[in-house]
């Protein structure tokens, strides 16, 4: 029996660790470094109906124990993602979670309908939380009613389970979580980045061309963990937790707080081998804590 195995709607994961969307492209770069089949799943870069060229540069800026980014959902568009990226990923035995984005409800519906039919796409991640685009993205993720309606619309056309990626840039993330659950979401992924700003102290000008960017990295882990801890008891759908995970203890914390699996984002830039390394370390960590399986660990903080 595989102690790391994790069963989630649409997803049979050999382990609960996967790279987060936007930090892993479509896998090609990391495939040069290790076998992608080792991963629990891959959350591919956000896909929109048409090609997006993203924001002007600079698009990233380092901050204390973190970084800001404002890439702007750059991607080759639905057609090319289906033809080039997803087809290429078929050589690996790894479930793909396709991140879906757009300006309008129709955009989300168009992408969701088509991409959910790709043979290796086993779940969708609805991106209603990108803080770096002027339309779409976060505007869908900050109002519970709009989030619920969008979830319904996408559920109606998707041939695979739908996870909704929540934004931390809200007053009550639990409200949004409950709303997307009511809209029929099969799971929640959380959290996206926190809106932030860095200024050049000499000139007073923003460092990032987009002015603001999304904060990620270990700096946001306590916020992300608190939010997962908050949301887990309020919903009955599973959570894939993320936000500043850089080591095996962070993985344990997110699972304890109620996440069924975790995603690794910014840490891939610091250590490109972080995902396989954490997968390798997880069994020993379970032993150390006295747990037989990953599933036993999930939500333990709520059972104390």
């Amino acid at each position, binding site marked *: 029996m595989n102690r790391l195995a994790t069963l989630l709607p649409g997803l049979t994961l050999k382990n609960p660790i996967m790279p987060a969307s936007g930090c892993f*492209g479509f896998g090609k770069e990391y495939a040069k470094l290790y076998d992608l089949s080792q991963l629990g799943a891959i959350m591919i*870069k956000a896909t929109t109906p048409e090609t997006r060229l*993203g924001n002007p540069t600079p698009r990233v800026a*380092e901050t204390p124990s973190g970084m800001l*980014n404002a890439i702007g959902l750059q991607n080759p568009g639905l057609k090319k993602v289906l033809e080039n990226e997803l087809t290429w990923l078929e050589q690996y035995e790894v479930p793909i979670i396709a991140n879906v984005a757009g300006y309008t409800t129709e955009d989300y519906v168009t992408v969701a309908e088509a991409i959910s039919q790709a043979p290796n796409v086993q779940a969708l991640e609805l991106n209603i939380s990108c803080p770096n685009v002027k339309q779409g993205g976060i505007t869908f993720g900050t109002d519970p009613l709009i989030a619920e309606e969008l979830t319904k619309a996408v559920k109606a056309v998707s041939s695979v389970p739908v996870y909704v990626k929540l934004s931390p840039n809200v007053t009550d993330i639990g409200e949004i979580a409950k709303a997307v659950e009511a809209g029929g979401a099969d799971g929640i992924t959380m959290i996206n980045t926190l809106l932030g700003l860095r200024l050049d102290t000499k000139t007073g000008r923003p460092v990032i061309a987009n002015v603001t960017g999304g904060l990620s990295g270990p700096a946001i882990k306590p916020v992300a963990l608190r939010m997962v801890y908050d949301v887990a008891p309020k919903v009955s759908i599973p959570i894939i937790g993320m936000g500043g995970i*850089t080591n095996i203890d962070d993985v344990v914390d997110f699972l304890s707080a109620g996440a069924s699996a975790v995603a690794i984002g910014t840490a891939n*830039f610091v250590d490109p081998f972080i995902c396989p390394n954490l997968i390798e370390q997880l069994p020993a960590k379970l032993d150390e804590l006295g747990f037989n399986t990953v599933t036993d660990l999930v939500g333990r903080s709520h059972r104390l």
Partner: protein
Amino acid sequence: MIRQEQMQVVKQSAIATNIFELTLTGQLVLDMKQPGQFVHLRVSDQMEPLLRRPISISSINEKTLEFTMIYRAEGRGTKLLSEKKPGDQVDVLGPLGNGFPIDKVEVGQKALLIGGGIGVPPLFELSKRLVEKGVKPIHVLGFQSEDVVFYEKQFQELGETYIVTVDGSHGSTGFVTNVLEKLEDDFAVYYSCGPTPMLAALEKLYPEKEGYLSFEQRMGCGIGACFACVCDTTEKIEADYVKVCSDGPVFPSGVVRV
């Protein structure tokens, strides 16, 4: 092949104001095939500062398994890097990117190498390889002022070298273009690394010449996954954009929109 290795500091010294020369050793050196590639370094074992630092390779010695970088200690990361002592370990990811092609110039021809400030270092390995091949390099190196000039002698040993400083405190006064306008243009290819306005000026100065330009951009992953370092392209290539880290940092002149 891209590898990650804990490499050992052989030596480190300040060679100009805030400019450091750092030599590391390890197996990864054997994968460094082209001048103009770079490495992505962690400057701390901690998560602060978080991101790796992209630094260009200034010389490679396969025999001793050593390579050298020259960098400016400017921010938190590079300041920490400048404190590394012989024997310390540095986490290196590399070699990354595509360097300067030396097969574009024939034996006996001249190549013009133009560097600006902290863009000068990768031209050193390039010049060494051109000389080995039998190509005659001409170096035009621009700096802000005398206190940040480095490697003048090393470049002179490889070929004709012109130094220019913005304030005129060393060599001639002004920008590299002030020197270039007076030079004969009997070179076959030009190679350059430096600030983008300088690269743009070179494309304007030598519209008919074959040139290879090394670009700089803020990076995240360094391997092409994060889309932080993209640049717009011109009509010269089909792609709408290029990534400096994995498609570059060296591009033929006229490809990147400057």
